[in-house]
């Protein structure tokens, strides 16, 4: 039973979805990222997705692209990110999932990466450009051997066969991409989202977290009705970007995470009352 499994079990007992913020590691630098991790946990994060910057982020919209550029310009490296996780993970008490593209892992060697990730306390790895067909060759076995969850994605274009394949390859949870497209905020949720998530939940025996385009507390609340986890990324990245000169960015982040995760907890409390 992994730390990620524990989170979803606990959230299920509390009858609420998990809140999963995304942060780009190294944006604007790794020291601040460390403070952001604490802030996100304090604000109510159940799991944190930590982005590994890659020069060619084909699945990301403009906001996360800019964060990537800032992180790379600050000299952010995978080794530095793993060291940061190693220093923080135990104290943090919140599982960390690396959200990455495949080439930085490939360059390191997937087995070496899996060992280092496990040693650093990374709980899960999600590779946006690695479907299970390719991930099954080396990364999944390597992660499994180290007890790190391999998280794969599903999308509105996924067929039944693909849902089954992804479910077989995944552990921890499945990340459902709410719409075809890249990361980034949208004004409205796709109308069929709840139905789509239900369809997945029937076929796949794993928690489903939904991401891509969720940015407001109201959207978090709506997605939380259907899914086991709600991911907010670009909205937080943009919030930090817009307040770049602020003297206490971690406090700002903590407030925003609290505001975004509040609807999930409030709902749970109302139910218990």
């Amino acid at each position, binding site marked *: 039973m992994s730390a990620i499994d524990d989170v979803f079990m606990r959230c299920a007992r509390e009858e609420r979805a998990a809140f999963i913020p995304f942060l780009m590691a190294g944006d604007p630098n790794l020291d601040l990222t460390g403070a952001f991790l604490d802030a996100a946990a304090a604000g109510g994060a159940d799991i944190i997705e930590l982005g590994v910057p890659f020069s*060619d982020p084909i699945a990301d919209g403009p906001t996360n692209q800019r964060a990537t550029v800032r992180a790379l310009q600050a000299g952010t490296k*995978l080794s530095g990110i793993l060291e940061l996780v190693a220093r923080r993970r135990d104290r943090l008490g919140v599982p960390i999932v690396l959200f990455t593209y495949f*080439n930085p892992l*490939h360059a390191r060697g997937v087995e070496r990466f899996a060992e280092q990730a496990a040693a650093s306390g990374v709980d899960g790895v999600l590779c946006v450009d690695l*479907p299970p067909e390719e991930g099954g060759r080396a990364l999944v076995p390597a992660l499994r051997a180290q007890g790190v969850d391999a998280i794969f994605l599903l999308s509105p274009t996924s067929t039944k066969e693909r849902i089954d394949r*992804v479910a077989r390859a995944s552990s921890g949870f499945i990340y459902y*991409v709410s719409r075809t*497209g*890249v990361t980034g905020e949208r004004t409205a949720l796709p109308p069929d989202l709840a139905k789509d998530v239900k369809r997945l939940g029937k076929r796949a025996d794993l928690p489903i977290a939904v991401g891509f385009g969720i940015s407001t507390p109201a959207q978090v609340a709506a997605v939380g009705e259907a899914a086991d986890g709600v991911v907010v990324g670009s909205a937080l990245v943009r919030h930090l970007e817009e307040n770049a000169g602020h003297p206490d960015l971690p406090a700002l982040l903590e407030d925003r995470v609290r505001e975004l995760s509040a609807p999930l907890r409030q709902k749970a409390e109302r139910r218990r009352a």
Partner: protein
Amino acid sequence: MLIRSKPRPEPGYFGEFGGRFVPETLMAPLDELIRVYDRLSRTRAFRRRLADVLRDYVGRPTPLYFAERLSTELGGARIFLKREDLLHTGAHKINNAVGQCLLTREMGKERVIAETGAGQHGVATATAAAFLGLSCTVYMGSEDMRRQRLNVDRMRLLGAEVVPVDSGSRTLKDAINEALRDWVTHVRTTHYVLGSVLGPDPFPRMVRDFHRVIGDEARVQLKKQAGTDAPDLAVACVGGGSNSIGLFTAFLDDRRVRLIGVEAGGRGSRLGEHAARFHGGKTGVLHGTRTMVLQDDEGQIVETHSVSAGLDYPAIGPEHVWLQQQGRVEYTWASDAEAIDAFHLLARTEGILPALESAHAIAEAAKHAPRLSGKRILLVNLSGRGDKDVESVNDYDRMHAVAAAEAR
């Protein structure tokens, strides 16, 4: 006796290169593309339709031309040029563009997107889209738009929307990133006409199949014009590697033919100064395929340089890596300066302005020809014409004339 059976090649792979490294959203659409392509490529009606379009609209077969004055000037082998520059739109790219646009129609999609570096693939796709009544958006790095302005105007006149890409090095790599982002968003209605033997399966083999007509024709033409279907040496430039694969495929099984691919040597051998993936690249994954990639130790893709926009790309088609590993094809590079010299050489001796991409192949041919006897046959793929590069060549010459004067 121990009999070791050869591992069965995996679909979509060339040895350990290739594959489908893409976001989940594209996987089911790629499955569909594979199904449609595999079915149609075996269907006689589709093949006949494609052959008709290639003959009547695109202008195939292209001539095989004995470049006598160039051969005499270099003093050695007899050089034959496969004149892909004479095709409609001026480069080999149209072979693939019409093939994929016909496929798009068969899939019932109404819109195509494309990336372009030198602008030739963008022009070819805009042309094929107009010809087949598809709407067309082309992504192009803003740096490439600057150096290939003529092609930007051509695409717009053909009814395509040209979207400038301002990220990264503002060249081909960044245009592909943006095209992939469009595709992942609009994949239900849109086909991505990828312009080279790159990207996820089935693109590397599909694009190869659409271009193999180049070598197939050359083989028959050589037999007729030179009395042999086996040149001693065949040379082509390699950006992603579509024109070279198109030429080489017909000769792969014929061990008499030496095959050389020419990468962009740029202005130096340091990482970032060139686009010679076999001279500084490492195995990696970029744009959906596992291949040789110019990258740093952290797996970040590095910027490249070439005077030729069409070769200015950090990865190479996966089949090329496999061919190199098997020792079937050799890969070398020509520098910016050598390509510019070759451009002038061909203009002066034959009255042909080659594309700067193709000039890299001419440069390599010029190194070999003098060392070969007059009985030897050297086949060069003249993949495109150089009208688009006139400004680049003038700028280059002017800059270097100034530098030379200052050095004096």
